[in-house]
């Protein structure tokens, strides 16, 4: 449900209405009784976030982090910065060292070496100031079984030194309103995660550190959390979140760092990573009665790097300059083209390529 404020065209009275995106409702002005229709705007589909070259101070600085567990180098000399106001994706397969990096940053893990700054504060010498600047959501979040969500958030508010009046709105915001006096021990996994999200927002810190915030959650929760991250950025906050779900990172992040086997293998904007890896957009051409056969003429066409056919869809990876040539060639050969689409390069491809090259 979304809430919209509309203005009566006749008497300029403000009317607040609620409805689903895309839904049309008939409304009448309470003041002048004018009747009218209103269609709620459709939700924007997540696409690659416009790249904004972030500049200015760093929200997070990680310098030369190395951490060894029983002789195993979990993280090997990692350095990167997160700029203020950006959404930063920290990407890597499971066990790559993402959690170790984030925990070292927060001083939860004693790193072998490395320097860490949060909001300009050194985590070792200015621990309290550094930690007051952040909201942290760990990968496996858990609270105290015998406390209610109200008591739990009360506790965190006191630790953060934050205003307690935000607790109720926060619980309402994440949808835990009805469970306000239930013991957290009786919560489902999703509910615990939502309480985790509520806890992160306490005190409105400038920086949010989220470790696999969407891991293990179903689509509904993922959507809620994704929206939350977007709104944090809109409010001017910095967000760093780790993930192995690439589509999420791609849709949300300004920049990403990719880690594999404890080493940083890339740190750049989403589009630059795609560029560097030379991943080109693909054409998806719906051809009538193609039936899974790749036309020989397309295979032989100069500039076509890859072509495959799935049922009636022909996928062509080629230089953008010859895209139109592909279409005209097909038409000349007598193929009946129903639809043409361009598929943008996905980070998933970049990621698989990077990780494979690293092997």
């Amino acid at each position, binding site marked *: 449900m979304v809430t919209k404020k509309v203005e009566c065209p006749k008497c300029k009275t403000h009317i607040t209405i609620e409805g689903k995106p895309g839904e049309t409702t008939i409304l009448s002005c309470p003041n002048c009784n004018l009747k009218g229709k209103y269609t709620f705007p459709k939700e924007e589909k997540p696409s690659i976030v416009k790249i904004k070259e972030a500049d200015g101070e760093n929200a997070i600085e990680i310098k030369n982090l190395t951490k060894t567990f029983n002789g195993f180098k979990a993280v090997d000399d990692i350095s990167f910065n997160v700029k203020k106001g950006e959404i930063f994706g920290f990407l890597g397969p499971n066990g790559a060292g993402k959690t170790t990096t984030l925990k070292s940053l927060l001083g*939860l893990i*004693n790193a072998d070496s490395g320097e860490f700054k949060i909001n300009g504060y050194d985590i070792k010498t200015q621990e*309290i*100031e550094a930690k007051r600047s*952040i909201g942290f959501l*760990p990968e496996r979040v858990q609270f105290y079984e*015998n406390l209610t969500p109200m008591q739990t958030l009360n506790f965190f508010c*006191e*630790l*953060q030194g934050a205003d307690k009046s935000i607790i109720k709105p926060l619980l309402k915001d994440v949808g835990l309103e009805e469970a306000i006096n239930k013991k957290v021990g009786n919560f489902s996994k999703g509910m615990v995660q939502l309480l985790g999200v509520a806890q992160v927002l306490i005190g409105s810190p400038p920086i949010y550190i989220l470790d696999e915030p969407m891991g293990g959650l179903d689509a509904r929760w993922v959507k809620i959390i994704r929206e939350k991250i977007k709104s944090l950025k809109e409010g001017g906050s910095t967000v760093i979140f780790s993930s192995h779900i690439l589509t999420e990172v791609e849709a949300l992040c300004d920049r990403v760092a990719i880690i594999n086997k404890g080493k940083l293998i890339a740190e750049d904007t989403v589009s630059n990573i795609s560029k560097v890896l030379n991943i080109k957009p693909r054409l998806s051409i719906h051809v009538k009665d193609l039936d899974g056969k790749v036309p020989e003429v397309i295979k032989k066409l100069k500039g076509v790097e890859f072509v495959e056919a799935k049922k009636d869809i022909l996928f062509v990876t080629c230089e953008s300059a010859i895209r139109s040539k592909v279409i005209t060639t097909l038409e000349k050969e007598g193929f009946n083209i129903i639809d043409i689409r361009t598929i943008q390069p996905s980070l998933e491809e970049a990621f698989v390529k990077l990780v494979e090259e690293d092997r």
Partner: protein
Amino acid sequence: MLKFNPKSVFTIAKKEFLDNIRNKWVILLTFIFVVLVLVFSYVSGSQSNSDSTFGGMQDTVFGLVGISSLLIPLIAIILGFSTISGEAESGSLYVVLSYPVRRIEVLFGKLFGLGSVIVFSIVLGFGLGGIVIFSTVGADNWQGYIAFILLSILIGFIYLSLAICISSFCKKRITSIGGGILIFFWGMIYGTVILAAYFATGYSMKDFTTGNIPGWFWNSVIVSPGDLHQTAVQRAFGITQIESAGFSFKIPEFLSMANVMIFHFIWLIVPLILAYFFFKRRDI
């Protein structure tokens, strides 16, 4: 210089109290404790009125020591054995430590918060027990009874500090259970070891009756907090001679109230220092 914010300690302590006062095991043990204290106070108290072989409150208290020195350490261990290892394993400690709070504040918050649960159990049990005793045997030697309550709280804190130490050392909840069991049975293990040493060094059962007991045999109670506690309770009631199973022992000079108290505080503080050291170095 160790920085410290008392407000954070209080916040952690309050949370620990609220969470653990509703722990079903703690509730069950407190219930058993209160019932046993009440039953024992009533039975022992009413008998001491009619039968002169019972020496009034003093004997009642020595009976109560049997109950309290078993149940108070048990409550303390259950409260503390996994307070750090369990929270690290479940993940709640990640969240807490990401807040502006120092590890030392978490440690002390836990000590005071869990400690107040113990104080609550003790005051409830011995408070109600006290009412029964005073109404049946009278309030003679009430100072001794107050001292006994304070000593019980102290021994509760000692076991709590040991349990917290175990839980900050052990990586997992399951291994800290082992540690908890070890400290609970330590008194028994100590007793067996010291008795074996007694016989191994050439002493015999006969020496008990003649009172030919080496100083170290008695003095070794300093390595067992439970035995130390019992000695302190005896001292609190001004007892210097112990009659047991036909034998008579004189509590050695070395185990004066002052010295016994010093060893209590060593048992309280050393595990805490170790706990801080383990916790500080721990990867959460």
